[in-house]
C-alpha cells in the first residue's frame, strides 16, 4: 500500500460523563482540549489551528478561540451537523499537508440531556421562514420519522427486516456493556435495562416512528471531547503512536424529485476517501459509523462498500458487527445507541477509531490496522452530509 503519511491524530479525549449538570458546553470543550493535548504530550500554547462546529454557549467559532485564550493561525468553522468532525479531520489533512498549521484541535461539548433537548421528537420547522421550512413544517415530521421513511423504503425495495436491523442494536449494546463509561451512561440516563439485549428486546420496545423502535434510536446525552491533529514532524515525538489520516471524502445529498432515498451521501464520500487512501473496503478492520438509528448504519454499510446496495440484511445475517465475530467490526465503543449521543456524534467515531488503532479499545480487535469513520449529518431522508475518514496505524 502506497499510503501517504501527511497528518495524524496525536491525542484524544472523550468527556466521561453523559449527565453533567452544572457544567457548560464550553467547559466541556476546554477541559477536553486540555486532556487531549495531555494525551499527546503537547501544550496549550502549541495549538495553531482550530476547527469548530459552532457548538457551545455563545456559538463557538470565533468565540471559542477567545474563551480558550489561543490565537490560532488557522480557523475553520465547518458546521454540517453530526458529521462536522469528519469534515474537520478531512480539512486538517488538507491544511496540515499544505503547511497551514502543525497542531490543530477540534472540540465538542453539549449538555443536551441536562437541558432536556428533544432532538429526535421535538418536531421540526421552528426555524422561521425559509423555502424548505415552508414546504415541510405543516406536516409534523420529526427527525426520527425522517430516518424512518428511509427504513420503510429500504424494507420495501430490498426486503430488509426489523429483525435484521435489530442486530445492529444488539451488537452495539454488547460493546457498550464492555465500556464502563457507556454502562454509567445508560445507568445515569435511567435505561430500563442496562444489560445486553436481544432482537426480541428491540422488537418489543415501543415504536417511536414506524418502523423504528425505541431500541433502534440513539440516546440523548451530555458529553463531548476533543481530537488533536498534527503534522508528521510533530507526530514523531508524541507520547502515543500516531494514527494517520490517510484519506477523506465529503458529500451532500437531499430530497430530489425521483431520487433514491435508500442511498446516502456516503455513496459519494466513501469512494473519494478510499481512493485517496489507496485502500478498499475489504481491507478495513473497524467501521465506526454514525448510529443515530439502526437504519443509518444499514444504509452506510452499503454505501461504504461493505456489501452491495440492498444486501445489508443478508450481510448482517452472515455474522459481522460484534468484535468477537469474524469480518467487519462495528462501533466498538457502544455507539450512539448505547454509549454517547449529545447531538453530534461524529467526533466519537474518530476517537474510538484511534483507540482501536492504538490497541486501547474496551472491545479491541487484535491487530486492527485500518478504520473508517463515517459521519452522517442532518436528515438521512432529507438534506444531509456524509463525511468519510480513513485512518491507519503504522
Amino acid at each position: 500500500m502506497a499510503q501517504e503519511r501527511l497528518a495524524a491524530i496525536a491525542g484524544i479525549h472523550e468527556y466521561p460523563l453523559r449527565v453533567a449538570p452544572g457544567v457548560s458546553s464550553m467547559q466541556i470543550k476546554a477541559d477536553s482540549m486540555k486532556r487531549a493535548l495531555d494525551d499527546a504530550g503537547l501544550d496549550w500554547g502549541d495549538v495553531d489551528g482550530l476547527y469548530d462546529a459552532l457548538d457551545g454557549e455563545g456559538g463557538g467559532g470565533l468565540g471559542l478561540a477567545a474563551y480558550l485564550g489561543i490565537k490560532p493561525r488557522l480557523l475553520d468553522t465547518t458546521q454540517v451537523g453530526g458529521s462536522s468532525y469528519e469534515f474537520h479531520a478531512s480539512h486538517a489533512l488538507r491544511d496540515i499537508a499544505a503547511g497551514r498549521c502543525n497542531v490543530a484541535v477540534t472540540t465538542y461539548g453539549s449538555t443536551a440531556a441536562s437541558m432536556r433537548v428533544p432532538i429526535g421528537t421535538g418536531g421540526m420547522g421552528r426555524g422561521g421562514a425559509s423555502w424548505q421550512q415552508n414546504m415541510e413544517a405543516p406536516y409534523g415530521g420529526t427527525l426520527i420519522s425522517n430516518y424512518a421513511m428511509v427504513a420503510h423504503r429500504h424494507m420495501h425495495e430490498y426486503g430488509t427486516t426489523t429483525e435484521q436491523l435489530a442486530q445492529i442494536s444488539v451488537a452495539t449494546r454488547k460493546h457498550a456493556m464492555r465500556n464502563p463509561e457507556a454502562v454509567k451512561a445508560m445507568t445515569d440516563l435511567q435505561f430500563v435495562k442496562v444489560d445486553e439485549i436481544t432482537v426480541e428486546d428491540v422488537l418489543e420496545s415501543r415504536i417511536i416512528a414506524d418502523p423504528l423502535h425505541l431500541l433502534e434510536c440513539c440516546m440523548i446525552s451530555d458529553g463531548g471531547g476533543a481530537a488533536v491533529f498534527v503534522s508528521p514532524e510533530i507526530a514523531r515525538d508524541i507520547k502515543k503512536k500516531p494514527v494517520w489520516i490517510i484519506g477523506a471524502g465529503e458529500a451532500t445529498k437531499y430530497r430530489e424529485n425521483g431520487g433514491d432515498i435508500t442511498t446516502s451521501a456516503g455513496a459519494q464520500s466513501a469512494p473519494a476517501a478510499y481512493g485517496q487512501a489507496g485502500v478498499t473496503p475489504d481491507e478495513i478492520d473497524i467501521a465506526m459509523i454514525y448510529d443515530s438509528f439502526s437504519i443509518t448504519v444499514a444504509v452506510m454499510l452499503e454505501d461504504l462498500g461493505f456489501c452491495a446496495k440492498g444486501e445489508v440484511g443478508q450481510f448482517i445475517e452472515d455474522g459481522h458487527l460484534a468484535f468477537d465475530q469474524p469480518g467487519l467490526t462495528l462501533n466498538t465503543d457502544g455507539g450512539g445507541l448505547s454509549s454517547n449521543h449529545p447531538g453530534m456524534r461524529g467526533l466519537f467515531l474518530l476517537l474510538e477509531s484511534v483507540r482501536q488503532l492504538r490497541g486501547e479499545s474496551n472491545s479491541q480487535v487484535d491487530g486492527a490496522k485500518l478504520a473508517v469513520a463515517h459521519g452522517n449529518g442532518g436528515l438521512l431522508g432529507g438534506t444531509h452530509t456524509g463525511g468519510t475518514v480513513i485512518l491507519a496505524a503504522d
Partner: protein
Amino acid sequence: MANRPQPSFPEPDTQHFWDGCKEGELRYQTDSDGNVVFYPRGHSTVTGDRGLSWNVSSGLGTVYTYSVVRQNRMPGFQELGAYAVAYVDLDEGFRMMSTIVGVSDPTTDIHIGQRVKVEFEEQAGDDAYPIPVFRPV
C-alpha cells in the same frame, strides 16, 4: 386538531405555491427545457436559469415512503394520535412531503405505492393557508 404550522412570509420562493393552495391548486414549476423544479425556487436546479413557468398539478400521485409518528412533542401535534408523514411522488414528476389522511389506522392502512390525491385542508382563521394533504383513491 389545532392549526397545523403555517408557512411564514415574506418568503419569495414559496409565496406563489401557497397562494395556489388558497385557489385549490397544487402548483409546481418547470424550466424552459421542461425540467421539473420543486420545492419552488427562483432558479432552475438543472441550468441555474431564472424565469421558471408555473403549472398546476393533477394532484394525483403515489406514496414513495412514509412513517407514522407516534411521538411528537411539538405543540399542535403532541395531542394528536399517530399520524403519517410521507413523501408523495406526483404524476408530473415532483416529490413533496405531506401527510396521508382519511385512513382509519395509519399504522396499517398506508403503504408504499398507494395511489393518492391531493386535497386542501382548511385551517382556522380568515387569512390561514389551507394545507395540501393526500387521501387514498
